């Protein structure tokens, strides 16, 4: 389940982009997300989107996954598509009964969709199938505070385990005739399941804390595989950053 949603654990199925040091990939993601968030021009954003699709082609999150995530995105943006054209004001494009669709609203909604899609593709494209601990290490090298990363490490490590445990408890409850209903009885049952999950996590966190202590944990991160910042990384970053700068400069010169 977790590989499907993008939480990768082992270095087993690597793809091309995984060979690029994750530190450089994080910087590149920042550049593109920042660019997409800042630009408000359709042509610039389309160019940015095309640039982000390039690494996506090399790292293969899979067309199915990209479409799925874009589908979720569109669902999330749907209220904007419904409301903005109705309220926008300006030139009318179409009318249906008392509802009028305005051009400015349609434009605003499509701008929104374009920006959000660009950011989505930027992240998906750079992600590859790098296991999460390499990302954490890269963030550490990029000066993200160690305590925050320690928190993240434990969250990611125990997420699959807690999810399995809670599924087991839910199955056990269903086997005893529990059915989630929209009344106080159903809510109490669900609250008890959620509460039991929290309690178990709490006790586990105490035990893990002791195990950490027993193995001499000092809060440092280690990465065993060698990562070298070489020519490939330099090329990657330069081309990525260069493309973004080029787009921004072109837009401001032309417009």
């Amino acid at each position, binding site marked *: 389940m977790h590989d499907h*949603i*993008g*939480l990768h654990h082992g270095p087993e199925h690597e793809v091309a982009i995984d060979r690029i040091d994750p530190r450089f990939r994080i910087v590149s993601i920042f550049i593109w997300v*920042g660019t997409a*968030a800042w630009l*408000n021009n359709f042509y610039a954003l389309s160019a940015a989107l095309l640039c982000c699709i390039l690494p996506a082609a090399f790292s293969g999150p899979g067309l199915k996954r990209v479409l799925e*995530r874009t589908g*979720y995105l569109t669902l*999330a*943006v749907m209220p*904007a598509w419904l*409301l*903005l054209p*109705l*309220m*926008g*004001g*300006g030139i*009318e494009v179409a009318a249906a009964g008392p*509802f009028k669709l*305005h051009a*400015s609203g349609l*434009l605003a909604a499509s701008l*929104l969709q*374009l*920006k*959000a899609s660009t*950011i*989505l593709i930027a*992240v998906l494209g750079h992600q590859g199938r790098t296991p999460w601990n390499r990302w954490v290490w890269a963030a550490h090298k990029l000066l993200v505070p160690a305590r*925050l990363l*320690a*928190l*993240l490490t*434990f*969250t990611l490590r125990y*997420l699959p385990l*807690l999810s399995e445990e809670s599924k087991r408890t839910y199955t056990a409850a269903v086997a005893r005739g529990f059915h*989630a209903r*929209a*009344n*106080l*009885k*159903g*809510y*109490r049952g669900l*609250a008890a*399941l*959620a*509460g039991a*999950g*929290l*309690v178990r996590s*709490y006790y*586990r*966190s*105490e035990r*893990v*804390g002791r195990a950490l*202590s027993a193995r001499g944990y000092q809060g440092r991160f280690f990465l065993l595989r060698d990562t070298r910042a070489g020519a490939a990384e330099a090329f990657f970053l330069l081309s990525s950053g260069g493309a973004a700068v080029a787009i921004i400069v072109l837009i401001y010169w032309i417009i």
Partner: protein
Amino acid sequence: MHISDGILAGSACVAGYVAAGGLVAAGLRGASQADSARTGILTAAFFLAGLVRFPLPGTSVHLLLASLNGIALGSLCFPSIFLALLLQALLLGHGGISTLGVNMLIMSVPAYLSGVIFHKGLKRGVSGWPFFFMTLTGVLVLGARLLTVALFEAGLVNFKLSWPSAAVWGGAMAGIIFLVFRFGKKADSVHIWGFSAGALSVFFSAVLFYLVLSFAPLAAHAAREGFVELARFAFVFHVPVILVEGIVVALLVRYLDTVTPELLRLQKPAVALVVMAFSLLLLMPFSVKAHAVGADAYVEEGQIIVEVWTDGGDVPSSGRVIVLGPEGEEVARGEIKAGKWTFRPDSAKSFRFIVDIGHGHGKTFSLHPDELHKLNKALASQGPAKQEEARTSPAGNDMASQERGAAKHESPRPGPSSAETLTRALLGLLVIGMVCAFLMLRNLRREVDELKKRLDKDA
């Protein structure tokens, strides 16, 4: 209640990240190493708990349960919620990545505050009922008002509940629910404070969501009204979520208090942090205010002059104006030069102006009735032909369209329309519905008591 990518302008995203970073750093300051493991695992647990679907008649909701984060973790809820939102955005696609900072503020500040309220309330041993009632009232009053405003702005009804009437309706509904719980159910102080904390957290988050969409710089300024409308509907649809979350947090907190009370007292909230949280929150609208755009239109010798200025006193270097007629059709547009733009109308209508100076800043306003009157007089003196044309234009009689335009933003016309009657009838049915709910809940209470008796026998 997550703002997705692409809605806010770049400056708002950056401001959000800066404020969020500050809160995360403040939250991590007192943390020891043992805390890292514990908080990390609990964050995973809260993340999963937020995926549980609670059924509602006809649908189901994901609860936020951020308030539980605030209650259990105190100031560590800031990094915890930040990471939970990061994972949601990366793994599940909920929310946005550029807007992560802003979303984190919307979720975590109310969560932290409700945690503080919960602990202080329980510690002082004060009865939670007044707070419970106030929370309910706030939610329902705002919900009632926003529901009618949202429907009004969408053109579906022709009136808005004024604040006093919203207070009456909302207060009445809150009162009924309050009475049901006060005298119909057995609840102890943990339940009551738990409900208040849970409901308050979602309530504040919804209010912040509304404020951000109303005041923060947007990527496309023309979308402002649309987003404010969206925020209104979002608030109204969240009212049942607020109530459900209140109930669920009350039940959860009771469970945890019985089984593992230490879990609820892990972190002592720091009062200084509350002050910091508030001030960071205020940062956002102030940064927008600094660029607030002022604009006005006045009539001079039969032409309309639109003047634009910014709060700092300077004149925007570029920008454009779009003029709309009373039916919303575009009449003219132009570029602002040196803060001014002139427009020569060939008829006197109640124009609306959209001023856009880029980066989501701008202003929308209507021509003032006095100015319209001046325009009418000026055009009349310019030639009766022009005035005739205006009178018989397909848009209808000037005065009538002016009234309709004005009425859209002012007090309701005398005499109810059919849509209005329908809405009022629905609200009335709602009250009757609440009374029936009260009666039904009394039966439910008997069911719950029987269940408890059976469980006690088993134990």
